């Protein structure tokens, strides 16, 4: 398995030029807003077409400018959780999750639904509409919907950013559990320094459309490769929780 990308994209004066490769691990794309993190995710999922490069997931090649390959988004095997979760408001929780089970045989999809309902603690709300369930339940439904197809990788575009602190902590623990259970590449976009430091196996640091440093978070935080990285991880202007998080660093 694994996910590797090498892409460029010019959008309205902004230039994205990034290249990275991860295994079955949790990678965090970290950096200021507007650094190109979400754009990268959308390009990987096929929602936006890059200008050049390639996108490979396991043995599948989803995009290659050189080989003229461009697989449409619905034929790519990625689970995607959006910042606003994007649950379908006209479908029940059950319909939302099963909508993600495209191509899965009927009996199997019911088994998986049942399994996910238990492990993601959404049993009992399956027949409710998304507007009738709590914030945490919505999060778990969005994850269940993205994972029921057993995708090759999971792409998370700041899914916890709108949550209050206790729920955010709960969802971080939930994500670590998902990562352990599914054993696929997970890419989490965040500009939360606490998440960047505590969650990933690999931290990929974005700045103005470029990867300026990547590696284990302790390395990136401990030995910043550039002045900019050093400034960002120590200036406290990224997130109010930064200073608290930095105090916990074993530096």
């Amino acid at each position, binding site marked *: 398995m694994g996910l590797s990308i090498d892409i460029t994209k010019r959008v309205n004066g902004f230039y994205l030029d990034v290249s990275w490769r991860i295994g079955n691990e949790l990678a965090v794309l970290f950096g200021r807003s507007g650094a190109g993190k979400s754009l990268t995710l*959308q390009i990987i*999922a*096929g*929602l936006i077409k890059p200008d050049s490069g390639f996108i490979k997931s396991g043995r599948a090649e989803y995009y290659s400018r050189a080989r003229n390959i461009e697989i*449409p*988004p*619905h*034929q*790519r095997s*990625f*689970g*995607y959780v*959006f910042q*606003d979760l*994007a649950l*379908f*408001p*006209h479908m029940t929780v059950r319909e939302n999750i099963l*909508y*993600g089970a*495209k*191509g899965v045989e009927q009996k199997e999809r019911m088994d998986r639904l049942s399994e996910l309902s238990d492990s993601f603690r959404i049993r009992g709300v399956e027949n409710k509409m998304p507007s009738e369930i709590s914030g945490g339940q919505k999060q778990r439904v969005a994850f269940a*919907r*993205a994972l029921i*197809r057993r995708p090759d990788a999971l792409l998370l575009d700041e899914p916890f950013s709108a949550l209050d602190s206790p729920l955010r902590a709960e969802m971080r623990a939930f994500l670590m559990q998902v990562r352990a259970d599914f054993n696929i590449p997970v890419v989490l976009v965040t500009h939360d320094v606490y998440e960047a430091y505590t969650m990933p196996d690999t931290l990929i640091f974005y700045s103005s459309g470029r990867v300026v440093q990547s590696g284990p978070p302790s390395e990136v935080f401990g030995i910043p490769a550039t002045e900019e990285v050093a400034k960002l991880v120590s200036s406290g202007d990224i997130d109010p929780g930064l200073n608290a998080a930095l105090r916990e660093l074993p530096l």
Partner: protein
Amino acid sequence: MESSAFFSMRLSLQVAATATIFIIIVGIAVAYFLARKNFRGKEALDVLFTLPLVLPPTVTGYYLIIAFGRNGFIGKYIYDLTGWSVMFTWYAAVLASFVVALPLMIKTTRAAIESVDRNLINASYTLGHSEFETAVRVILPLAKKGIIAGAVLSFARALGEFGATLMLAGNLPGKTDTMPIAIYSLAAGGDWEQASGMVLMLTVMAALFLYLANRYSGKVV
């Protein structure tokens, strides 16, 4: 006279209902492409489909005669092949109502489709659903209220269509005299009593449909 009023009402409903069926099919397809696709001439196409909304219906009717008349650039082929012309039949009234009322369906449906959250559409793609499946299962259901409002408005407009219908279908009593045309004939002939009955009926029906359209479109955005 009673039976001719009944005939006009039945004909009007029949024409408006038939036109609305075609309006729904064509209107949704055109609105979808205008809302979701980028192509050269898109806005020109929008103007073309909107024109009947602002042109005098007689002008629209004139164009339809040029197209579908016995010597029209489409009509002559139909006539050569079948010996039949749409002119002065109730089908002509359907055609006129269709063209005049279609813009209301397209405008309302396009706005409703454009208001569907982009992330929901993207979510559907990432969950393995093609553009067509996404349109059928996500976009159109979420735009449903706008689509219903557009269909109701179009039906009301088709019911009241006069100018283009008169030019294309004529005023043939017992054949093409829809309610608006019958009202014109009755008033011209001085039969105010009969005319006011029909006027009242059309007004009540139009008000009812506008109310229904508002109920739906109010909840669209």
